[in-house]
Every structure is written in C-alpha cells, then in structure tokens.
C-alpha cells in the first residue's frame, strides 16, 4: 500500500499539477484567452452556457464538500494527504467554473441567485445522496460515491464538453483539459483504494450498490434535463461559422467516434449516458461491485 500511495503524494501532485500542466495558466486557461464574442453576443447561447456552467459549479461544490469531509474519516495518513490534494483540486474547479460564470456576464452579487435558479434538482439530490455518506463518516461509501461515481461521471462529461469546445472555444476547452487531468487522478485513487477494502468488508456491498443505483438514477435524470434545453445542431453550426472568423468553419467536433455537431440533443444524451454507464460497469467490476440498473428517469 505504501508504494501505491506514494503515487498520490503531495510532492507528486505539486510537480504534476501546479508545477506541471497548470503552470502558466490563469483560472485554468491560457493568459488572455476570452469567451468567443459570438457566444457573448448571442443571448440564447450565452444563457445556455450559463445554465451548463451552473451544473459544473454545483457538481464541484459537492466534490469539494465530499473530499474535505472524507479527510477526517480516512483511516490512514496517506489517504488523508491524497484527499488534501483532491480538496484543493475541487476548490480550484469551483473557482474556475465560478470565474467562467463571471466571464459570461453573471454579476458577483447575483452569483448565488443564478446558481439557485438554474441548479438541476436531480444533480442536487445526487449530491445529497453522496454527502449523507460523508456526513456519517462512511469512508468506504464516500470514496465509491465521490471518486468512482461522481468523478467517473464528471470525467466523461468534461471530455465530451472538451471535444465540443476544442475548436470553437479554446478558453473553455483549456479550462476543461486541466480538470480532466485532475479527475483522472481522483478516479485512479478511488479504484486502487476501494478494491482491497471491499474484499475486507464484503458485507458493505449491498448498501454501496444501492447508493450507486440511487446516484445513477439522479445522474441520468440530470443528463435528460440538461440536454432538453441544449443548443440544437443549427445553433452550434452558427457558432462554429462565427468562430471560424468568416473563413472555413473549424473542423468538426468528434467524441467516441461520433460527430457531435450532427447529433440532436437526445442522441448526445444517449451517447453520454451510454459511455458513462459502460465505464461505470467496468470500474465497478474492477473494485468488486455489481452495477445496479436504476429505474428509467
């Protein structure tokens, strides 16, 4: 275990994140990068971006509360120190996505109101299921909920958003790239740490699988609602043309072998949910849990 945890030390984190892929960034992106004018000037697209970013802030606030809360429940010093780095990663995510809301024109005094108005109720419930475990100092349940389920979901959501923004909004794509690198580390810790503990405590499996089913239900319901008001392909095409500065439009966005620009929102939702669930099943099997299918939202 000592060797495994040495890969999650603060020294390693300092060298790979602040002194590595975050070096030279400002709020997660390259200095001086801005949201595209075309996005800021288009009321519908700007509002849609605000709604999407609010969900990211809500998810990251949950991750911050969970990772900091789990430190006091962690059974060893090495895990506490890893969770300290995760706490700061999550706080950084809260900060960079909050900053994006300001960049999209949300006034500081209105921040909490905007978050309250747009937070998806299913995402809030998803967070509550996890934080109940954290409040009870349930380290095992908390790490599965946080580092396997929440982080696993965030990882794919960010990847898909990154693919969609890479050619039209480099500022946001760069912000997402740093968070994806962080999430990869968090998921790795969860998988590595939990397998051994579950083997020692097999009696905990049913309860943790129940939590997974509840969290998965709220995750799928969040996706369904989020894509209900996602921009249509024609709106995205408009942004892509403007982002191409009147010349040739940027190359098409692809993720998981599909051209995102051509997909209507309901197909994007199915692609994201399918990818997340497929990965979930693999990860859960790796740590010795059986995926529980939730009711259809």
């Amino acid at each position: 275990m000592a060797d495994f945890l040495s890969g999650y030390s603060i020294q390693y984190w300092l060298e790979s994140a602040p002194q590595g892929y975050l070096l030279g960034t400002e709020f997660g992106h390259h200095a001086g990068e801005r949201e595209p004018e075309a996005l800021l000037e288009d009321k519908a697209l700007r509002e849609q971006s605000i709604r999407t970013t609010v969900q990211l802030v809500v998810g990251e606030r949950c991750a911050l509360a969970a990772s900091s809360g789990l430190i006091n429940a962690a059974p060893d010093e090495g895990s506490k120190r890893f969770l300290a780095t995760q706490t700061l990663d999550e706080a950084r995510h809260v900060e960079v996505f909050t900053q994006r809301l300001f960049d999209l024109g949300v006034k500081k005094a209105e921040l909490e109101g905007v978050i309250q108005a747009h937070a998806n109720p299913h995402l809030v419930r998803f967070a509550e299921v996890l934080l109940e475990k954290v409040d009870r100092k349930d380290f095992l349940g908390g790490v599965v909920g946080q580092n396997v389920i929440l982080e696993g979901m965030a990882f794919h959501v960010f990847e898909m958003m990154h693919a969609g923004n890479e050619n039209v909004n480099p500022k946001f794509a760069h912000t997402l790239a740093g968070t994806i690198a962080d999430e990869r580390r968090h998921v790795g810790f969860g998988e590595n740490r939990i397998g051994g503990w579950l083997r020692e405590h097999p009696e905990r499996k049913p309860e943790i699988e129940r939590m997974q089913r509840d969290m998965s239900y709220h995750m799928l319901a969040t996706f369904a609602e989020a894509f209900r008001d996602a921009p249509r392909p024609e709106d995205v095409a408009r942004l892509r043309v403007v982002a191409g500065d009147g010349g040739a439009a940027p190359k098409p966005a692809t993720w998981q072998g599909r051209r995102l620009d051509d997909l209507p929102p309901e197909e994007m939702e199915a692609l994201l949910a399918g990818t997340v669930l497929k990965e979930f099943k693999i990860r859960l099997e790796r740590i010795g849990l059986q995926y529980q299918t939730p009711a259809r939202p």
Partner: protein
Amino acid sequence: MGGPTCRDSVVEVHDLDPQEFLEQVHSFEFWFHSVEGYLAGTQYGHRAASREQPLSDSERDRLVTALCNYCVGETAALEGASGLIAIAPNRLAKVFLSTQVVDEGRHLEVLLRRLADLGVRDPEAEVERRASASIREFKRRLLQLVGSKDWEAALFAQNVILEAMEFTVFQTHARSADPVTAEVLAGIVKDERRHIGFGENELGRRLRESPHRRARLGEVKRDLDPLVLETFEKTVREIGIPASERPDLGRAYLAAVARLGFA
C-alpha cells in the same frame, strides 16, 4: 477575465477594495502564485543539494521527538482545516481553506519524510509512541470545536492559536536546527503566515461587526492556553533553546494572539 489578477505584477492587492482584496487573496490563483516561489525545485520541503549535518545520538533523539509532536500539530491542522470547509460561511473562505488543507497535508508529509530520513523506520508509529499528551489533548479539543460547527471558535483555535503556536515554535527551531530541518521548517513558516493572516482578517472583521463574540473567543483562549504553554515547555527542552530565550516563545505567541485584542 474580470478584474486584475494576482499574476499581474502591477496589481498591489492592498490597494484593492475589501471585497476585491478577498477575491484575490482567498483564491487558488493567489496560493499558486505564493508557493511557486519557495516550493519550486524542492523535494519534500528542501533542495536536493542541502547537506545533512551529522547529529549525535541524543541530538537526533531529541529532534525525532520534536518532529513527532509537530506531526500531531499538523495532523490536527489538516483535520481541522478540512472540517472547517463544511462550516465556512462563503465560497471564498472555502477556497482559502482548501489551499490551507493542502498546505497542512504537505507539512505532515515533509515532516514524516524528515523522520524517515533521520532513520525512523515507521514514522507514523513513532509519532504515536512519542507525541506529548498536551499536543494530543489540544488536537482533541480543536476537533471538538470544529465538530460543534462553531465557526468563530473553531477558526480562532485553528488559525490563530494553533497556527501562532506552530509559527512561533518552527521559526525559533529553524534558527538552531540542522540545515535540512531548518529549510523544511522555514517553508512551513511561510505557509503559516498566510493562514494566520486569514484567521486575523476573518475574525477581526467579525469582531468589529459583533463585539459580543469576543467573550466566546476569550473562553476558548483560556481553555487552550495551558495546553499551548505546556507544549512550549516540552518543545523548548527538546530543541535545545537556551534558557535565556525561553520566555520569548510564550511572549511571541501571546503577541500574535494579542493582535486580535486578546491579552
């Protein structure tokens, strides 16, 4: 980008209005900028080129005991700061405390590594064996305050009393320690300065707005002072501070706390 950022060299944070000042200094960006300067190129808190100085058996033994006590202090700080995030009243305080959490985790890591470098086979077990009763009791009471969700009292115990105690001890010890330990402690002291600043700023503002809270904090101080002073007594013996300098440690701590009006 909204306003100026801490990376912009023309920005002097103390010229900013109070809210903008907090937005700047309670951010990951500010932390990142601050630690870059003194942590870049270090390995576990010191430069690779720093030379070990030979220690006698008794010097090494006393240093190990001192470091074991510091580890309990830093574990208390790590668990305390992480617990404070849940009860922090706003986003900026939560983000600042997250930077403090990683600072405290780093302190614990570099101190445990120092113990290993000094030849301690199982540093965590050694901490359990050697740490003093007073610092353990301090940790218990601090975490009790955090658990009771009393923001002002817990922040006072954590970011004023504990941080001022560590700041005073580490700064004093760094002056007489071997070069590697001195470098590790000097890096920690730089972080502690930031943490004390946050505590003083947050509590100072709250006390100005609601002076009645002072009585509660006075109670916390009276409760914890004997443990702090007992810890000082033991530490000065371990780190070999000359008798003539010993009262300074208590005075320096009391001066730090007195800045908030607690004599």
